[in-house]
């Protein structure tokens, strides 16, 4: 059974309460439970547990929206007045990758609170697969640099929209295969946004993509909240 527990599960700091507790406590088998009371308890417990076990907590999407706006905004501010276009400054890249690192830490922290078992293993595999796809996007950018490609392409349009188009397409296909229409539609919209933003030019592509993705993520967050309240 040990394979049920993943590397993200922190070891308990204290002895397992199961070992420490005695089994002499009395079960309240005699407690009267009215059927109406039972139905209400069942519904309430199920609702509370489903919220606790939610894989995508509502905080993630607004946090992603802010992250994208800061990261893409920092790059846009550093390139908007460049003529000819030479690419983001070191400071802007530090902000871009710094916010990305904060985002990864946040997601990892949230997932560490999650469950063990099949869904945990599935999420880890998903994470590895999408990370590999993401890395390949940057490997291709290295090839563009190696081929002395135009800076407007290699350090402007490509890095701004390629992650969105490539990773978004993979996510849209994955979610469509799972018949998850909302997630598939969300990912497909991000792909369309990336494709259209690429026409904005090497500098403004950062602003268009950043603002567009931020709005899309906020719409996603609102939809998620609306579904929770429904």
């Amino acid at each position, binding site marked *: *059974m*040990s394979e*049920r*527990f993943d590397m993200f*599960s922190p*070891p*308990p700091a*204290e*002895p*397992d*309460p*199961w*070992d*420490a*507790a*005695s*089994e*002499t*406590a*009395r*079960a*309240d*088998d005699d*407690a009267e*439970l*009215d*059927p*109406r009371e*039972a*139905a209400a*308890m*069942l519904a309430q*417990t*199920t609702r*509370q*547990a*489903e919220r*606790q*076990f939610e894989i995508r907590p509502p905080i993630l999407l607004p946090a992603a929206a802010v992250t994208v706006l800061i990261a893409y905004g920092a790059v846009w501010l550093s390139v908007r007045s460049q003529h000819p276009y030479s690419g983001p400054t070191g400071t802007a890249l530090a902000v871009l990758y710094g916010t990305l690192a904060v985002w990864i830490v946040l997601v990892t922290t949230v997932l560490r609170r999650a*469950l*063990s*078992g*099949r*869904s*945990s293993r599935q999420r880890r595999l998903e994470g590895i697969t999408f990370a590999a796809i993401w890395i390949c996007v940057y490997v291709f950018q290295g090839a563009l640099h190696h081929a002395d490609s135009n800076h407007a392409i290699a350090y402007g349009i490509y890095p701004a929209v390629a992650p969105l188009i490539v990773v978004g397409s993979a996510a849209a296909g994955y979610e469509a295969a799972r018949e998850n229409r909302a997630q598939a539609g969300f990912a497909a919209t991000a792909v369309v946004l990336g494709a259209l933003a690429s026409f904005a030019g090497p500098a403004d592509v950062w602003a268009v993509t950043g603002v567009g993705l931020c709005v899309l993520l906020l719409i996603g967050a609102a939809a998620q909240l609306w579904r929770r309240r429904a």
Partner: protein
Amino acid sequence: MTAEELDPLIHVPARLRIVATLAALPDGDSLSFTRLQDMIGLTPGNLITHLRKLEDARYVGIEKTGNGQASRTAVVLTQQGRTALESYTAALRDLLGEL
């Protein structure tokens, strides 16, 4: 249908909440004993007593890993437990429909 016909193993406040909580997990996932205790709000001794009853009926499985400080106990709802809760829910719905 009467209230006495409801599954007596589930028709107890603490065990109903335990089973309903575990049923909200994705199929095949387990929950640590500590987290289940936090969610249900029972003392460890009481929770163990209820879990033992559910385990005896094969409604839940108890998984222990590690030793000493590193030991960890996890609880999982079995297929039998999931089916029992579905039957209980259906019976409850029938009963409330008749009331």
